[in-house]
């Protein structure tokens, strides 16, 4: 398993040995990838103080040979204790053109230690080199901020888009013959204009005849 190293971040200036990156770090190929999220938890009074997380972070490591992702969700509670985010719903989805595709058919939850592991399926379609973008996110929950992270994985099935037919697509790969359509539209439009102009000409001819009489 590839090691993550230790990264730190501050909580109101206090330095803590936390395995996390700052908010803008969303991709890290070989090491730890984490996301640091903060919430002021205003207005949440129904949850006991010990269960309130001010900060959460996700730590992700991966096992290349098994194509397995390990996620660890932790946070700092209101008493400044570092605790695992247990039994939290985690969304693990792959980015697709029109939205996000769930990796697992069933919901995924962290265990008591805040850990979760998933073996990524082999048949996820990636780009030409089999690369795809994975989003891991803590589901919306009142007791902790919803941290998320994005990683690029090259575990997918390579797909050659140049030879990809339009099967199963919502939109066509090949455009309809708009040039023919445009030419027809222009022709119809100008024919209509000419005919209407001719009708106006007839009306004014009629008027001229009346004046002559």
């Amino acid at each position: 398993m590839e090691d993550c190293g230790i990264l730190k971040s501050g909580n109101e200036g206090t330095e803590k040995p936390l395995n996390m990156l700052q908010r803008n770090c969303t991709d890290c190929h070989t090491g730890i990838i984490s996301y640091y999220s903060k919430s002021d938890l205003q207005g949440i009074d129904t949850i006991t103080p010990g269960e309130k997380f001010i900060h959460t972070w996700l730590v992700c490591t991966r096992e290349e040979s098994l194509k397995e992702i390990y996620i660890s969700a932790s946070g700092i509670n209101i008493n400044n204790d570092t605790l695992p985010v247990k039994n939290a719903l985690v969304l693990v989805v792959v980015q697709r053109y029109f939205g996000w595709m769930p990796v697992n058919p069933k919901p995924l939850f962290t265990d008591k230690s805040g850990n979760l592991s998933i073996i990524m399926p082999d048949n996820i379609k990636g780009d030409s080199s089999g690369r795809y973008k994975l989003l891991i996110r803590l589901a919306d929950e009142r007791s902790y901020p919803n941290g998320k992270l994005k990683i690029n994985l090259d575990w997918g099935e390579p797909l050659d888009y140049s030879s990809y037919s339009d099967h199963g697509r919502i939109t066509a790969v090949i455009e309809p013959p708009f040039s023919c359509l445009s030419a027809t539209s222009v022709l119809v439009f100008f024919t209509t204009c000419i005919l209407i102009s001719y009708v106006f000409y007839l009306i004014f001819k009629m008027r001229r005849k009346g004046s002559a009489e």
Partner: protein
Amino acid sequence: MIVQEEKKNIIIKDLTRNIRLTNRFHIWMGFLTLCLIFCLFAYYKQIRYGLGVTGMRDYVSWGIYISTFIFFVATSLTGMLICSILVLLGQKWIAPLVRISEIIALSFAVVAGLAIIADMGHPERLLYIFIYGRFKSPVLWDVVLLIVYTIICLLLYFIPLIPDAALLHERSTDIPSWQRKTYRFLSFNWKGSTEQNSLMAKAMKILLIMIIPAALAIHTITSWLFALTPRAGWNSTIFGPYFVTGAFVTGVSAMVLVMYIFRKIYGLKDYITNMHFDKIARLFVLVSLIYLYFSINKYIVPAYKMQKYESVYLHELVAGRYAPLFWTIQITGLILPTILLLFNFFRKPLQLFIISIFVFTGSWFIRYLIVVPVMENPFLPAQNLPEKFVSYTPTPVETTITIGIFIVVIMIISILSKLFPVIPVYQTIEATTNETAD
């Protein structure tokens, strides 16, 4: 000869009775204007605060404005059906109803654009269609065709009016001078010569033929606004004919309503007779049956296959949230009227008028059901949206603006029917003279 002249005078007297601007008319127009001002205030609110004052949100971005637009376009089809097809087929009985059909076609076609402007939020956005319009988009085709169709309707209304305008200018002395000047301007120096008659006939023939492809195109392209979008419920190849036949039903019902009201108010019982109502009712049965055929096709084919997204939409429509509305309008607005009109008793003016109210109202709701439930069921639903972003209910502001659009139509019909004869005078005199000569 004297008898003919007497007959002519009676016809002129009867058919120009409506053009007096009476106090009743002023009160009626005053009432409509007041209502319109109230509706314009709602429109001001929309301009001031944006489309957020309507019920349209992320899911349903086309609400009652677009439903009203397609309803208006559909109603205006009566101009093509009555004025063109039946006239070209040599149906002489339709002659007194031609102008009424053109009044309906013209007023609804002109005002249809207002529904689109209302839907855009700000009126100046209409210019964007022309500035940034894409040739590939059916929206641009629709706008262009609507303009062309309106011009043709306008010409079809005003050209047969030329001899009548000349007659009114010549005979009406007790009218305001601006009205006489208007008639003089619209008479185009009409003297009734053979040459003028043949020029008018030629112009009319061109327009009567032109309006058929124009009307079919505008209704088909309006349907393409929906059918060219890959959405469950719209993704259909028969949307074009479904819209056209639906428009026939709407147009005929609108025709009956206006016919009945004009006959009653302007005392035209001798010209719009029970025979006319009977024939229109038969026509109604014919177009309803064709529409029913396309409706069944539209729903049965996807219902048989029950593809994932189609099934959600169809369930909503047939057994879900929209089921009461759907079944009510299918039964009271289409099936029952078609059955009733098979019997002589229901083809009488009053009965037909009442039936037409149901059909006309139902026609608007059919358009509503074409637009809204489909938009509420997209292929890729957004997650975690508030309920009001997912479902659609028109707000009072939106409803008021829509009512305002209807008021504009009523105002146009009222003005046209008060300024000009609702039955062509010149053609009626010609027909009577020919009958006597025969």
